[in-house]
């Protein structure tokens, strides 16, 4: 069956089977920035924002996403370059293998959007549905802190 999805401000037609997840539909459109780490809603690598709220796209039916605004990592970069959260991830060294990065960036955006100045504990709580095996989270937390503190440059 064919459904219409609104992804990153664009309307897209996509062919799906009724049981297909949103993750599958998104990747079928060539938007492979959304990753599958477990397919069971446990790692957060497939995080996208649905109407501004983070979801595990591996647990969400594509069919049910019709008529809702979906933001994937590919839609975050603006005309003037990287989103401040993306910029902070790059400059703080919050990326190693990078497989968790799209999900981490989007979950961080969802946090900052509803709580522009989170504490470290709030940041860590918010990131706890998203796993990272490389960084030990230190630099990811630093990147989010930096955005929360108004993008102060990391001196040194």
């Amino acid at each position, binding site marked *: 069956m064919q459904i219409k999805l609104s992804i990153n401000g664009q309307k897209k037609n996509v062919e799906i089977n009724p049981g297909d997840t949103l993750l599958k539909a998104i990747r079928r459109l060539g*938007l*492979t*920035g*959304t*990753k*599958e*780490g*477990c*397919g*069971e809603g*446990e*790692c957060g*690598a497939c995080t996208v924002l649905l109407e501004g709220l983070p979801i595990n796209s591996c647990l969400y039916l594509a069919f049910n996403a019709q008529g809702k605004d979906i933001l*994937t*990592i*590919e839609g*975050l*970069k603006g005309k003037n370059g*990287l989103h401040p959260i*993306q910029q902070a*991830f*790059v*400059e*703080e*060294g919050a*990326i*190693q*293998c*990078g*497989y*968790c*990065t*799209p999900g981490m*960036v989007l979950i961080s955006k969802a946090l900052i959007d509803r709580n522009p100045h989170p504490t*470290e504990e709030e*940041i*860590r*709580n918010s*990131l*706890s549905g*998203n*796993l*990272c*095996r*490389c*960084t*030990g*989270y*230190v*630099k*990811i*937390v630093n990147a989010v802190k930096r955005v929360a503190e108004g993008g102060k440059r*990391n001196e*040194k």
Partner: protein
Amino acid sequence: MKNESRVIGRKVSRIDATEKVTGSFKYPSDLTMPGLLHAVVLRSPHGHAKIEEIESSAAESLEGVIKVFTAKDVSQELFGEIVKDTPIFAREKVRYYGEPVACVLADSEDVARNAIKKIKVKYKTLPEVFDPSEAMKEEAPLIHDNYPGNIAVEKKAERGDVEKAFAECAVIEKDTFTLPYVHQVPLEPNGCIAFVDERGQLNLYTPNQSPAWLRSRLAELFNLDLFQVRVIQIQGGGGFGGKCPLTIEQICVALALDIKRPVRLVNNREEDFYATWGRVPMKIELELGADKSGKLLAKRSRVIADNGAYSNIAPGVLSTALTRIDSLYRLKNVENIGWLVYTNKIPTGMFRGFGNPQITFTVETLIDRLAARLNIDPGEMRKRNAPCAGDVSVHGWNLKSCGLTECIAICMEESNWNWKGPGKMEKGKKVYRGQGLACCIHVAGNRGVYPSFDGSAAEVRIGPDGGVKVLSGEGEIGCGANTTFAQIAAEILGVEMERIQVPEVDSCYSPFGLGAYASRVTAIGGNAVKNAAENALEQLKEEAACLMGLNKEKIIYEEGRFKSGDKTLTFEEVCREGCYSKGGTTIVGKGTYIPQDVTIADKETLYGNISPSYSFGAQLVDLEIDVETGKVKILDFLAVQDLGRVLNPLGAEGQLEGGVIMGIGYALSEELVLGEKGEVINPRYRDYKIPLAIDSPQVRVKFVETNDPVGPFGAKSVGEPALVPTAPAIANAIFNAVGIKVNSLPITPEKMKMELQKKIRELEEKE
């Protein structure tokens, strides 16, 4: 050198950071191609069973299924890194739950997943054995007919006079330790694509950590000429050793060679627990003695290592467990014997640290027990035993640089270190605090796996556009090697990072390099890149001299300009004119690095200087134990590493921070739990517990720069050693807090609570 720290030592963002943060970076599981077929493996539902019949016609008749493969359809050669005992698909019998028995190739992954359920395999179960100590007994079922006692390998490493040395000890501590089966769980499960092109050449896209080694293994297994195998490395989502051995590529390649169409094989999360092989579990009996000043005199170890059902890289892991720790201190008398034992478990393999975390846990915890009996501060005791640059260790390791004493000192100074012996529990007290310290030594380019050549080669290619391409065979698995290589080239050539590209490893054009294992990439590959860049710069100077009509000796190069008197040419001008004046040719700087006075360890004695340099580290943890829940909470964690020289603080800190958190997982929460058939009980993130952001402390890291004489710009290694001292530091802090001796990992809240209750009962009985 005048501009030496222009790029080296500075905070530099990864060269692939923008691609990764925007989602445009393509990982192995993102790749596709026209006509791609999908493979799904049928795995054994028994730990040990005879295969009596495989009936696949129902699966083959499903729409979309191309073919079902079993052992009879593929190469009959056995493979294995040191002991060759592994078939591509099980033949006659299965030896572990999860062993590949058949594979469906279909138009889509969904069809293939559905089809494997239709394959009927008739098994006759055989007695199983899962405990290596049991497997060594005479009456145990034999897993491989040609390995009596289920012993794959027995090794020894003995030096000095252990009997005599133990007799001279003032204190001796002895205990038995159990180290668990843990898994790498990289965020991206392993996957690859293989196809045979019209000329008969095999092409493989893979995240494998050692493309060159992989290529030679595949050529051997499938009886192909090396030049017929093209391996292209695609940076995967994490490796940690798991993507180094041959675990799935051989299946993908076998299918592609047969079907002559592109084949994709990507594990799902559960499959990755069976198809990517974790850390070798060990049972270690350790005896350690010291004189009354705290000087370590003798060590005796007996290591029983769990090979699982097939010999992967575990023989090498056993050698590491038998020797590595002995060079951390000035020990002279050691007697180590180890057995690698077959069991009906998933094979074990390569995981960050490679046998070192297991043995370090035992020695570093016994040192604290010795220190407690001698009433010597464990930090001081370690300093008294620490080696210095210039030492040759008990196994012949040539320590050209060593910052261990300084690492320990920094830990003690910057953590309010206040050690007062093992803690005692008091009635009614609910929360205890403790501090623990532990150290490590690690290699930086361990020789021994690929006997013919362990060096590295690189090319720095500069075209008329002034763009610089750094070619190396080492590859990138996410640690930041390509960024380091770009920094090295930028430093030598005096150009900006943006000008430099580091293409992926492709056996079509990449020079020789062995890849990301044994902490070798920066130390060995980095030296090759440095030499290649220096060679390219010399060629550019010659071109500049030629253009100016001068001798090369008259040319000075600084800040991107070639100068002589009042004559100046820019880098771009020299590249352009230099290339065009020779018919448009590319300037190719060539470099190699062959580690000097480094050898493969002797097979019988394990003696020999196996690495060009060695890195050292110390870690200190401050923690809290909740008596009611048994939960251990990390309050502060400081990791100090002598990595020779920090080439990029962002990368080095990231390696150390990430390693410590992985080490905390090893210490407190991670364990692959196997059921009665050897099936994984917890093959998912909700049950296999890696640390979450909320569990993880904001690790503090510091570096000691000993400027190693052989490393590139003085650099050694950091990625692997990062997790080695973490678990023993935590165990020592528990000893310091409540006096409990930790002999097995992970220290889960349940286990901790049980130990605490035991102590409380003892306390009550005394009253």
